[in-house]
């Protein structure tokens, strides 16, 4: 019980805040409650398959395979695989972090994991079609070209700005 309270203290605090807001400003309180409910249903309906795939990935793909394809010495092929993995994904960015954690656990290189995160965040194929439909094909393509360059640069700089010790630590927290 105590452990539960400790883990969920921020969540419980936010509920209290929401209730207070609800009493002070019923309109906003009710609206936020409805939004939270809608988001919760939407997210909880995408999450189960993601985590099941995650579990399967963890059990069936061994470290050697992941390292071979996306590890330090995987070269351009590794970057491409990480990029395609991220682009083929569905779901919000926060669903990508646990998957990135598994990739790290299995020995993917940090650069490739950052490429994966970048691709997941902006070049998801379903999103691109939707972007083109909403804002026009020119907007989508211009942003896509910029994003591909940006993803590589961001991944490169992020990796470079972490020293050996810090990189080791990231691998450690994902063991």
């Amino acid at each position, binding site marked *: 019980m105590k452990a539960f309270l400790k883990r*969920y203290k*921020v*969540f419980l605090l*936010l509920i209290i*805040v*929401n209730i207070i*807001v609800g009493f002070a400003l019923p309109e*906003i309180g009710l*609206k*936020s409650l*409805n*939004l*939270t409910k809608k*988001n*919760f249903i939407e*997210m909880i309906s*995408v*999450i*189960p*398959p*993601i*985590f*099941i*795939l*995650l*579990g*399967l990935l*963890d*059990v*069936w793909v061994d470290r050697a395979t992941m390292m071979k394809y996306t590890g330090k010495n995987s070269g351009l092929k590794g970057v491409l695989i990480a990029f395609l993995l991220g682009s083929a994904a*569905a779901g*919000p*960015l*926060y669903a990508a*972090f*646990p998957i990135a*954690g598994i990739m*790290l656990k299995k020995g993917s290189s*940090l650069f490739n994991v950052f490429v994966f995160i970048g691709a997941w965040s*902006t070049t998801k194929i*379903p*999103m691109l079609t*939707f972007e083109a*439909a*909403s*804002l026009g094909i*020119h907007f989508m393509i*211009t*942003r896509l070209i*910029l*994003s591909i360059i*940006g993803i590589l*640069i*961001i991944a490169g*700089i*992020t990796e470079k*700005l*972490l020293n050996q010790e810090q990189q080791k630590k*990231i691998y450690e927290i*994902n063991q």
Partner: protein
Amino acid sequence: MFTYILYGLAGGGLAISFFKDRNKTKMALRKAWRSFENILPQFLSILIIIGLALAILSPETITVLLGTRSGIWGVIGAAMIGSVTLIPGFVAFPLAAALQKNGAGYMQIAAFVSTLMMVGIVTLPLEIKTFGKRATMIRNILAFAFSLIAAFVIGVVLK
């Protein structure tokens, strides 16, 4: 639609896995549950924060901020709103399209869309759990800077 594909993949994967090795499948499910339970507290908190933020910042407010104030302040404002909001692309793109029709510039919209996708202020706790504080900060700051640059390029190209 993509949710169904995801379910199809997960279901198919589970079936094959179960057929090949029951114990491993059980282990996979246990791991799936454990990693979900691991992020649950942050996940629930984020949901409430989004609900509160969107209830206070109505679409009308967002439109006013992005539509009337053009130029660099509009871009920076759009980038900041994009960084703190967390709405799925399927909602964001129609919103962006509506903003654009109501007079917001491509530059502001590009800044909003890019930061929305790449920068996650509310999801920082989750990201830190995987990448640690330093890498998370670096990635988000770079993504923010990149979004501004991309916005300017798009604004110039699509004039």
